[in-house]
């Protein structure tokens, strides 16, 4: 099969591209075997590669398709306009499935594992209710992701108890009778105000001039923050293990599918896919699995740990995710292209930012607010070379591995860079970092010089050689 056979029109001019957070771009669109390339006529925008990083996966397999059923945000208000679903399910079926899932969040593709073709899907809880409602389209949809004769796993981020109690309010879980090929695992992850309280207690403990080691450790334990980290990382490892080691596809959901679900899907990708550990790959991950996936940033990050007014929907879900990424980064210091500062920067901007990236609760709101016309994108600032150089990890060595973090409590540490940032000057650590960066820069300069001198030497030698021959 030649790629050329699949590409009907390799090039189209005068295409206008609309994307969230960026102004509309006009240019020439080219289709290659693996990418969509938009080359802009305007001077100040660069070439854009790979509009949707999962298109790569779809191109290769043809088991999946892009669906525009949600393009008016009518089917699911918190999903983006384009989602990836199994090819065999049509848009009508999707509408029916959306009515069976909390918030209309029908199962969509989150990640495709190239090594063995297994996938991570995510959704909201099924609205089985006390009557044990079922939806054949829903069953068909997720069964479509299974290979013949293979089983899948459903990871429910609520305890069995909580999941059962959800039925009284119209929610529930996938019953074995209706989903015989799927095995359900419950891995409880805390959410909502419990997380916010945990953050508040932790920050209090960090700020206390305790002068007493026992009191400090006591308060650290009582905040339970590290317990939450361990819970989330353990579930993410479980998800990754199902995909990579068991060779099974998984579906992840909690209640609404906008908090712990996203923590698990995004962390699992960090574990499984080396590309998410590069800067661009990580940015794409955040765009895809948090921003476009509809994590309600506006509500969750309205207030942080110091606020005195009554808390409603706030919860440090994204911060916990960043903390988990930091834990993995610490255990694998050479496997990430970005450094801790990158994560700290994302934490700051999620709560308060001059950029529009983290505004709104989902794509629908961002479109209504016309953010792409009215605000600047965080990524456009971060990706400038002068900024990027401060956020790059000098020890990065690209590898193709799946990295398995240790979740033993001894391996997890308090993220000093966030929680103890203002307690004492990090001047010395910064200096050490500066020193390292300077060394690398100087190294590059010297190498360049050496190359020039070598070339000159070679030229001189050939000149001599030419002069010598008669």
């Amino acid at each position, binding site marked *: 099969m030649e790629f050329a056979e699949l590409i009907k029109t390799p090039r189209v001019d005068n295409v206008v591209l609309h994307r969230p957070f960026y102004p509309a771009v006009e240019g020439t669109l080219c289709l290659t075997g693996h990418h969509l390339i938009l080359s802009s006529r305007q001077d100040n925008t660069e070439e854009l590669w790979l509009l949707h990083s999962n298109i790569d996966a779809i191109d290769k397999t043809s088991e999946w398709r892009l669906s525009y059923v949600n393009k008016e945000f009518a089917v699911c208000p918190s999903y983006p306009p384009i989602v990836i679903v199994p090819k065999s399910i049509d848009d009508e079926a999707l509408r029916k499935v959306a009515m069976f899932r909390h918030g209309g969040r029908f199962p969509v593709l989150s990640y495709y594992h190239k090594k063995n073709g297994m996938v991570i899907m995510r959704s909201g809880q099924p609205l089985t209710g006390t009557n044990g409602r079922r939806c054949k389209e829903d069953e068909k949809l997720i069964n479509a992701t299974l290979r013949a004769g293979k089983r899948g796993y459903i990871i429910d981020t609520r305890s069995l108890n909580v999941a059962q109690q959800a039925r009284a309010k119209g929610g529930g879980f996938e019953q074995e009778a209706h989903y015989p090929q799927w095995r359900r695992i419950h891995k409880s992850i805390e959410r909502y105000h419990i997380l916010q309280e945990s953050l508040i207690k932790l920050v209090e403990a960090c700020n206390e001039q305790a002068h007493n*080691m026992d009191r400090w450790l006591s308060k650290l334990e009582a905040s339970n923050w590290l317990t939450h980290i361990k819970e989330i990382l353990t579930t993410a490892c479980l998800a990754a293990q199902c995909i990579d080691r068991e060779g099974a596809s998984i579906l992840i959901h909690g209640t609404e599918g906008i908090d712990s679900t996203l923590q698990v899907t995004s962390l699992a990708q960090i574990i499984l896919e080396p590309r998410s550990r590069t800067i661009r790959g990580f940015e794409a991950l955040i765009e895809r699995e948090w921003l476009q996936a509809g994590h309600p940033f506006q509500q969750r990050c309205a207030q942080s740990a110091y606020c005195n007014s009554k808390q409603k929907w706030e919860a440090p879900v994204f911060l916990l995710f960043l903390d988990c990424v930091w834990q993995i980064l610490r255990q694998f210091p050479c496997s990430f292209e970005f450094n801790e500062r990158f994560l700290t920067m994302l934490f700051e901007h999620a709560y308060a930012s001059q950029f529009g990236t983290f505004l709104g609760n989902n794509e629908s709101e961002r479109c209504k607010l016309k953010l792409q016309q009215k605000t600047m994108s965080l990524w456009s600032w971060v990706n400038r070379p002068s900024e990027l150089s401060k956020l790059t990890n000098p*020890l990065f060595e690209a590898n193709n591995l799946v990295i398995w973090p240790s979740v033993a409590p*001894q391996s997890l*540490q308090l993220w000093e860079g966030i929680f103890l940032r203002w*307690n004492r000057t990090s001047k010395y650590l910064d200096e*050490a970092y500066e020193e390292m960066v300077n060394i690398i820069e100087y*190294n590059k300069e010297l190498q360049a010089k050496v190359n020039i*001198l070598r070339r000159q030497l070679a030229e001189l030698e050939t000149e001599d050689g030419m002069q010598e021959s008669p």
Partner: protein
Amino acid sequence: MEFSELIRTGRAQAQLLRGPEAPPLRGTLCVTGHHLLLSPGPQSTPDLWLLLLRSVDSIEKRVAGDSGTITLRCKDLRVLQLEIEGVEATLDIARSIEALSSLESVITSFPFFYRPKGLRLGDSWHFLPPERYYKRVARETDAWRLSEVNEDFGLCPSYPRAVIVPRAVDDDVLARSARFRQGGRFPVLSYSHAPSGTVLLRSSQPLTGPQKRRCAEDEELLRAVLAGARPGARGFILDTRSAQAAKQARMTGGGTEAKAAYPGWKRLHRPLERGRPLQESFVRLVEACGDPEQSMDRWLSRLEGCRWLAHVKEALSTACLAAQAMEREGACILVHGAEGTDSTLLVTSLAQLILDPMSRTIAGFQELIEREWIQAGHPFQLRCAHSAFSQARPKHEAPTFLLFLDCVWQLGRQFPLSLEFGEGLLLALFEHAYASPFGTFLCNSEKERCLCEVRTRTHSLWSGLNQPKEQRKLRNPLYVLNPLAIWPSVEPQSLRLWQGLFLRWTHPPEPAEVAWEKVWQIVTGREETEGSQPTASA
């Protein structure tokens, strides 16, 4: 006693499991007088695997069917498992290891037999720290002199031959003062801080007893110290026992310096843990670290309960206090506990790391350890007889030196550019203090080392570590000379569990080592590129 009497079975077939660190090794196991050897089978690597028997802390054996398993828990916290073919072989080997790993005699220990290629006997023993340090002091001030009153170790069996004392005080005064101090440890100079003209001294407790005895010579000695320091200098006596413990010590013949007898000197109490409670703290910490299945709550609970980090905080705080008094308040300090051989040395050596940039270089740090721990008479043989896994009845063991290394590590973490050495050196010192082919940490005092002829018949650890091929693991590639004092934060939030030591064997070290290697490559790459720039040719 012949070693061969203790070895019941010479050899057996075995497989060695080394945990996450490396793949298992299969081969022939042999027990020799000092080592356990595994000679790998034809399909494995050609290297011989060796374990110094002295590094075994505890041994557990289990037999099932026709083979057995021996679990060796080492003093450096590594756990190894041997699967041996043959029940009788297993039991015999276990018994041999047990007997050989706990031999108490110094002169038949391995350092007396260790003769590696490339090292000459007598190397690196030549630098005598008190003498060398005295030369440095004499350059800055002439208020001090080197006294050899303890030449034959008659006055104080735990001090070295030469000590630094005030010039104005003669040897008779020292002799009397020695009789007034526990173990003969009269006040001697530990460190002279030139920028402020003040000094740090150490000693043991005065033997005031219930009758509140005094000693005019001891008082004269301390008066001379203040007189020789910066004019108007005050003195602080830093007692590493609580006020209550110090008072109780009088009942058994010890005590504290009476206020009236030592005008100009004010006493402060900063209790530091020592002895049995410190060893227990170490044991409980290692236990907690060894359990990866526990919940986060339990882990944090156990971490708090063992109080190890609390001890680290106390040690660093006290050292900071001493350093601050010297540098900022222009005061002289005398540090002592009861015996003056444990927490005293912890405080004086840490205070020097804080104040003196020289002690942060590799050479300076080695000298600091020689001077303030080894020659100052810290009883290594007793303190490091057993580590955290030992099941033997505890006698005099205590991880005071390890606590010192932990505090140094905390300093290095807070000031990553200011120490010329890295974690590798601290880990090496921890290992060798408990079990070593080198003679540096043998015995309890200089006197014992002279009797056993340690310096002429064993190799010094420093000559081993200072070989070029070891340097890469021990040096800090980011080091820049920092002429200032470095003041660590002792807030509990700033102190961390030393993962590299306590969790060294439970988590694969690979990523951290790869990162260290990468940093080295970057740094030496720069140096090589600088060096390889071709000079312009004519």
